[in-house]
């Protein structure tokens, strides 16, 4: 299936001209994950499997709640459990629903070499268009959150689609619909930011003085946001404090590309012009040379 026509594309991987974007009034959407309301039931994992028709291999229990232990080509969202001591002697159990953050400035899209394999819709959702994926793994290098996983079966990259197919017809993502505690909400980004800040304020009143909204500016903000109890230390839950696209990726996909093309074309052009101006070093006339030598 190609990208949904009902969702305008505003950015397209490996494409240097503007994609079709006739409709300009599409509201930005966002999913808000409030970890203070999460009970770790994994209903979101099940709903994701069900809606997207995914069946990961049954793994083994490692003695912790994490199962599966990490995202995979068949598990696009995974509950991660962290036993942390934010202050000495104050054990806390933090639970974070891991998955694609749907960056406003997506590193995967920037790194992707295949035209149209990664797109960003006008509503902010970043989607992998599998039929155009060539399996190179550049998206993995571009992503600041270590999200894309490549299938060993078909060598295509997979990640959360934010249920772009559901959102395209006015439904909320499957994980949002199923969440029994209302920890996951979905709506216009502005509303979600306001609600997230309100929730953070409520948490502060209840003693979590560093509670806050995780909507990192380094990637232009994200369309999946968290309300964190310890927003000052997102690394407690394996979240980067200041995520941004790696400078290596920016160099590789930014300056290096035009410079390299100019260098290679320039070298060929310089050769051609040199030949036209100076001309070749001719092979000397043998007869004349021989005369010289004989003399």
């Amino acid at each position: 299936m190609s990208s949904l026509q009902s969702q305008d594309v505003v950015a397209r991987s490996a494409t240097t001209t503007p994609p079709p974007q006739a409709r300009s009034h599409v509201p930005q959407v966002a999913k808000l994950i409030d970890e203070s309301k999460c009970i770790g039931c994994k209903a979101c994992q099940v709903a994701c499997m069900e809606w997207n028709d995914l069946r990961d291999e049954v793994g083994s229990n490692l003695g912790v709640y994490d199962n599966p232990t990490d995202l995979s080509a068949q598990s696009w969202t995974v509950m991660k459990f962290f036993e942390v001591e934010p202050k000495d002697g104050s054990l806390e159990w933090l639970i974070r629903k891991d998955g694609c953050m749907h960056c406003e400035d997506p590193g995967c899209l920037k790194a992707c070499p295949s035209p149209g394999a990664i797109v960003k819709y006008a509503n902010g959702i970043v989607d992998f268009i599998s039929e155009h994926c060539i399996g190179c793994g550049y998206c993995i290098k571009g992503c600041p959150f270590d999200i894309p996983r490549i299938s060993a079966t078909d060598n295509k990259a997979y990640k959360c689609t934010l249920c772009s197919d559901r959102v395209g017809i006015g439904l909320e993502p499957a994980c949002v619909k199923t969440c029994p505690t209302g920890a996951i909400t979905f709506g216009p980004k502005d509303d979600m930011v306001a609600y997230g800040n309100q929730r953070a304020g409520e948490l502060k009143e209840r003693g979590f003085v560093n509670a806050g909204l995780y909507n990192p500016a380094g990637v232009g903000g994200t369309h999946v946001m968290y309300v964190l109890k310890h927003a000052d230390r997102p690394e407690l839950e394996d979240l980067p404090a200041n995520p941004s696209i790696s400078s290596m990726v920016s160099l590789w996909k930014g300056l290096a590309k035009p410079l390299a093309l100019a260098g290679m074309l320039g070298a060929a052009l310089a050769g051609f012009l040199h030949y036209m101006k100076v001309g070749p070093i001719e092979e000397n006339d043998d007869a004349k040379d021989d005369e010289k030598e004989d003399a």
Partner: protein
Amino acid sequence: MARMLSRYNARERLNHWVVAILFVLAGLSGLALFHPSLFFLTNVFGGGPWSRILHPFLGLLMALSFLGLFVRFWHHNLGAESDKAWSDNIGKMLRGDKSVTPAVGRYNPGQKRVFWLMTMSLFVLVVTGFTFWRPWFAPYFSIDIMRIAVVLHAVAAVVLVITTIVHIYAAIWVKGTMRAMTRGTVSESWARRNHALWYKEMKQGK
């Protein structure tokens, strides 16, 4: 009929052309994934996934074939006393002053630089390439290492391509050179003109 000197035997020539063909194939499949404007080159290899699959094999084969040239020619490409005078005059020679070609041996300093640039860039390409060769080797390397590796890979590739453009142009520019690689021989006057010390060596050896 001009008198000829033997410069490359059949094995050396075939080795060179195997490297050249693999360079073109690895280069085109690599450029296809380097810049969006060159993605159309994937069509040459049967599409995007096939370009991605074939590129590392083509590149590795090129590097292994080049190893044959390296073993054969590295000792001809060490520095020599005669190099300095040639390097000092490269500007004049490029401006078309034909009176100043200092005597050099089998290879001039420009050719030596091409040899070592190709050797180094191929080495970097192979080493960095392994770190993100999917699906077999990439899982053993961290994302941070791969991010550095892709940049170095691109830089080395551009160095190799530009060096090869210089290499090809030099062969077009200096008439009588091409047949060294197509027929294996060069004329005595070519050798006297461009590689005087090598010419002497060859005549004395006879």
